[in-house]
């Protein structure tokens, strides 16, 4: 079975949710402790939500320096699949694995609610099985999720198809930038998630791993987790970069 790793920092708090979501999506979850320097041969890595190292100073910045992140960066550099969710997105953004930064929500309050999300591309390892249903309804829970990048970077992201998820109104029309409750944190261009240029590292603020069963309000997030599981399985099977990097690390 495909093994997907979940990084556990001190202060991670959606690690168990993520491990379980991987199981539900049909793969074998593997916990990766922040102090370890290797990835135990997993086929993909999820950096989960929470408050790594308390999110003190700036969300994600202290976690970025932990030993496991060196391994994650090397894995990503070798083409390994990495998904950062919420705090995990903040961590990989601080680590420079994806472009941009996550600022305080414009309303200056933590927000925990459901949002609507459009998937902008279905040809990535993170979204291949996520269609066609949209917009997705998934929960958010964060205080620092306002996506920021300078104008040139923003233009390039849109041009190169690196915007993976966008906040939208319930009817699917794009949310505004400021003063629109459907863009909960005031992210520039309503960006909720991005992918790196190479297409193997993605991050998003909402929580697909907490939207995997109707009992809890939505299973719209399952397609994202399943996409990752399938892509990781395919990559491992083909003996391509991810598994090599994992065993070599």
């Amino acid at each position, binding site marked *: 079975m495909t093994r997907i790793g979940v990084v556990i920092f001190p202060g991670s*708090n959606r690690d168990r949710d993520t491990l379980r979501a991987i199981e539900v999506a049909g793969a074998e979850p593997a916990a990766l402790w922040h102090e370890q320097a290797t990835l135990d041969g997993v086929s993909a890595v999820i950096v989960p939500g929470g408050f790594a190292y308390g999110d003190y100073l700036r969300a994600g910045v202290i976690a970025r320096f932990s030993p496991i992140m060196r391994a994650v960066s090397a894995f990503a550099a070798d083409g390994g699949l990495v998904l950062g969710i919420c705090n995990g997105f903040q961590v990989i953004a601080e680590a420079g694995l994806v472009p941009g930064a996550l600022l305080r929500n414009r309303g200056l309050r933590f927000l925990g609610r459901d949002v609507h999300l459009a998937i902008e591309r279905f040809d990535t390892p993170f979204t291949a099985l996520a269609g066609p249903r949209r917009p997705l309804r998934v929960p958010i829970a964060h205080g620092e999720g306002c996506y920021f990048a300078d104008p040139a970077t923003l233009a390039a992201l849109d041009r190169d198809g690196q915007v993976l998820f966008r906040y939208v109104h319930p009817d699917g029309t794009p949310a505004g930038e400021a003063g629109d409750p459907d863009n909960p944190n005031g992210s520039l261009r309503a960006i909720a998630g991005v992918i790196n240029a190479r297409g193997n590292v993605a991050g998003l603020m909402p929580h697909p791993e907490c939207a995997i069963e109707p009992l809890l309000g939505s299973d719209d997030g399952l397609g994202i987790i399943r996409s990752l599981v399938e892509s990781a399985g395919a990559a491992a099977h083909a003996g391509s970069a991810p598994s090599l990097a994992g065993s070599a690390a």
Partner: protein
Amino acid sequence: MTLEPAAGPPAETPLHRALGLTDEELDAIVARLGRAPNDLELAMFSVMWSEHCSYKSSKPLLATLPTHGADVVAGPGENAGVVSIGDGLAVAFKIESHNHPSAVEPYQGAATGVGGILRDIFAMGARPVAVLDALRFGDPADARTRHLVDGVVRGVGGYGNCVGVPTVGGELVFDPSYQGNPLVNVMAIGVLEERLLTRAAAPGPGNLVVLFGSATGRDGIGGASVLASATFGDDAAGASKRPSVQVGDPFAEKLLIEASLELVEAGLVEGLQDLGAAGITCGVSETADRAGTGIEVDLDAIPRREPAMAPFEVMISESQERMVAIVRPERRAAVEAVCARWNLPCAVIGRVTADGDIAVTSEGRELARVPARALTSDAIVHHRLAAPPERRRAAPAPGAPDEATDLLPERGMDPGAVLLALVGSPNLASRRPVYEQYDSTVQANTVARPGRGAAIVRLDGGGAGRPARQPARGIVATTDSVAPVGALDPWLGAALSVAEATRNVSITGARPLGVTNCLNFGDPTRPEAFWQLGEAVRGLADACRALGLPVTGGNVSLYNESPAGRILPTPEIGVVGLLDDVERHVGPAFVRGGDHVVLAGRATPGLAGSDYARLAGLAPEDGPPGIDLELEARLQRFVREAIHAGLVASAQDVSGGGLGVAVAEACLWSGIGAELRLPIASSPAVDLFGESPSRILLSARPDAMPRLLELGRAFDVPIEAIGLTGGRRVVIELAGAGATGAAEERGSRVADSVDVAVADLRHAWDHGLARALGWDELGAGAPEGR
């Protein structure tokens, strides 16, 4: 009366009084020691014999509560109540106040309140799975109130969100009586494998006392800092500069949770105790007393955050995020390894002894020696004077003849307009602006989030190495307090609170497991306040007995008075229930058009204490509605049975704002209207907006109706079909002799029908709170800091 705060105690004030102990209490200490205490011992007594730690005024009252139940595995006296739920699992839960710290520093007060109650849960070996916050403030338009609400809500979120425990419910109530003294009560719930149940005891002389978590600073020394000037030569200014505000570190708490649970799961600890009020003194004396042992504390071994701390400061510091474990010597290394893994400082600070004393040593010298019992179970008990107020308004006895207090047509009010006003009023409007600041979904088990009715959290979801159970069960939780009625009749207020909280659990289909409570009252040396406390405890006990429920724990907060006034006596009731199959829970919103709407129970007269009374005024001699506890018990059994039999589509409690608001909510949550014809038993105001208890608004498919009505008869519960769901308006026609007669006598038309668009109700409900608090809709608030 002092006009200016004194910089320090005048030289002639005896130390014990400066520490808050009375002469009588000093005598009692001397009697227990057989000698005069030294200053360190006196400091230890002063914190342990505080009302907060000793329950010296409330203990005799609490002893009258029903606490037994077949499934109760830990009751009052433990850090949290624990009830077995079968399959080897148990649920731990408790509610606690942090009123006074929150009044001083709302963010940190609320944050450390969350931290404290969570520690009580995982000290039992339970993983915290849910938090509920019950908040009460003064006038929402007042600047000070707004500052407090903002800070408290940020504090609850700031802590709970970070530690990864979902905040799934709570309350937010405004009443002028809380203007100078807000209430911040927090309830936490945890789940544990019963075999891992851990007690806060220190058995086995020779065992080690291990302190782990944050280092000890001068936090919360507060009143005791007089000792610094009195005995340690600090000048008064220096003493007053010592910080008394405790600052919480939720990140440290998260590590503490994981480390504590790992220690418990690995079987490495004999006992576990959180350190809160009275710090190490409380931790060691309570654990020793529970085991009939003593503890010798090596002061020098305690990790400090600050230089030059005096012994008394170390012993009574309330630094947050600390735990004490009792550990066998051969397991020391294993315990240290777990703490190191979680990067938590950890130190052996003492040993369990057989002599029953708490001894404190430093550099080989003994600084204090006090019997553990004298600090805890044998602390002084005060039998306070109780006296009822001279004038009070009592509820009519159950079954008393109805007396119309029909203000509604008299004032020429359109009941639809009243309904809109109620739905948008600060106490009834949506709490979304508040609970959206909380993470309610972390742990991926929240089935019913905050917003409508009781919270539901799935158990047995599986994952992380644990098998999923089929069907998955669920925990249902709520907090409630009917404080305005308690001000008129404290017995009734407490009984109504228990009835409402348990009803809110029962209407989901869950079986209530037990009751926890936080008694927020005034100065117990004031006979009327103490009478209120006594009556409330009696009401709590009576209601729990009638419903067959144990009180598994709680907390008492007294002296909730300020120059601005006294709070309504507020018995905050927390209830936890169990759903055998979480998928089959029933919600409060209508689910489809064409269902029958059914009212189970019957309105009784009395409007005092209701939201309608607050909005519209009422006859001065009107009393609050009474309660028939037997009917309440039957009603709750009926609704659980009906849900179990699959007869119920939705079930909504009738409480704040009465039946009118209950209908409005069931509609506006679903977007489905209703057309109802309400038989008026006493008066339109009472039947529409009265808050008499023991009523449930149900909806059911037409084909379920015969069996539902039959079940009502079987349980001897009055039950009436009052209309159908459907459309986009809420229409309630008021029918029956009572209404027509009363209204016609006054020469007005029968009280007009309620006829309001669901969308209008929704709008009023959505925006009422933000408007009342002056928050803009996106939630931009005051800058941090202040």
